C-alpha cells in the first residue's frame, strides 16, 4: 500500500479508512454552515422584492467582491506577487485567454520569487 517504504507513519496506513464519529460530526457541522452560506444569499434575494436601487447595488457586486478578495491578498504579498499580477493583466488584455493568463501568472510568480 505504502509505496514509500521509509515513511514512519505506520499509524496512517492501517487507519486510512477509519471514520471517527466525532470527526465525522464536526465535518457534517462544517458542511451545514457552508451550505447555508452558499445558498443563503440568493435565497434571501429571491424572497424580497428587488428594486431598481437594489439592482444597481447588485450590479457592482461581482466586481466589488473580486476586488475585495484580491486587494488584501495582493497587499499582503510582495513585489513578486504584484509583478505576477501585472503579467496576468497584460496577458489577459493581449490574448483574452484565461488559461494563458493563469499559466503566465504562475510561471511569473515562481520566476519573480527566484529573482526578487
Amino acid at each position, binding site marked *: 500500500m505504502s509505496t514509500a517504504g521509509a515513511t514512519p507513519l505506520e499509524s496512517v496506513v492501517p487507519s486510512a479508512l477509519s471514520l471517527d464519529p*466525532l470527526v465525522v460530526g464536526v465535518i457534517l457541522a462544517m458542511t451545514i454552515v457552508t451550505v447555508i452560506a452558499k445558498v443563503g444569499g440568493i435565497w434571501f434575494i429571491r424572497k424580497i422584492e428587488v428594486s431598481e436601487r437594489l439592482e444597481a447595488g447588485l450590479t457592482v457586486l461581482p466586481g466589488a467582491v473580486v476586488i475585495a478578495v484580491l486587494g488584501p491578498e495582493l497587499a499582503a504579498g510582495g513585489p513578486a506577487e504584484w509583478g505576477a499580477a501585472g503579467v496576468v493583466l497584460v496577458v489577459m488584455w493581449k490574448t483574452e485567454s484565461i488559461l494563458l493568463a493563469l499559466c503566465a501568472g504562475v510561471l511569473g510568480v515562481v520566476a519573480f520569487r527566484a529573482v526578487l
Partner: protein
Amino acid sequence: MSANDNDPGDSLSSVSSDHAVDGEPTDPVKTPSDDDVTFRWDGIRAGILTGTPIAIGVGGYGIAFGVLANQAGLSVAEAALMSATVLAGASQIIAVELWADPIPIAAIVATTFAVNLRYSLMGAALQPWFRHLSPTQIYGSLLVMADENWALTMRELKSGSGRGAFLLGSGIVLWLFWVGSTVLGVFAGESVGEPERYGFDFVLAAVFVALAAELWEGKSSLVPWLVALATSIIAANVLPGRWYILIGGLAAAALEVIRHDR
C-alpha cells in the same frame, strides 16, 4: 465592434461599448430575458471544459490541504469526506490548522461559517441570470460553488452566453479534482514541500486578476472598486478571518444603492 454583441468570446468589446452611452436612466446591465438563460447539457459541458485547467491548478491547493489534514491526524477517509462535503478550500485549511485534541468544535464551525459567508454574496451576484432557473437548478448548482468556478461562471454569464448550467459543470470537475488531490495529499504526507515552490498558492489570485480585467466596465467601475479596495484592506487589517470580503463587497454595493438616483 458593435456587430458581435452575441459572440460569447467577445465580452471585452461588448462591455466597453456599454459604458459609452451615458446619461441613460435605465439599468446599465443588459438584463437577460427568459429565453436567454438555459440549463442544458451544453452548459455543463462548457463548464467542464473551461473548468478543467482551473481545477488542475486547484489540485495544488488540494494536495496542500491533504498534507495539512494528515499532519492534523485526519485519516484519508476523513479528509476526503471533508473535501467532498464542505468543498471550500480556505475554510478547510483553516479548520485543520485549528484542529487539536480535544477538537475545538465551536471554534472550527464558527470560523468555517465566517470564512464562507462570502459565498452568500457571490451567490447573490448570480441572481440576474439565475432567477430564470428553477429552485432545484439554482440550489443544486450552488452546492458545488467555490471561488474559482464562481469566477469562471461570472465571466461566462457576463459574456451573454446564457449557459445557466455552467456553474454546475465547472463545479463538478472542480469537486473531482479537489477530492482526488486531497487523497493524494494525505498519502504524500510530509514528502511534498510547500505549494509556494510551484506557484500553486498564486492560482486563486491569478484567477481573480484575470476576472477583474474582464469585469472592468470603465469609468462606472472606478468608484465602487476603489471603495471595495479601501474597505477590504482596512477590514483585513482590523478583523480576523475573511470578513473583509463581505465588508468590501457590501460597502461598494451600499454606496451604489445610495447614489443610484443622483
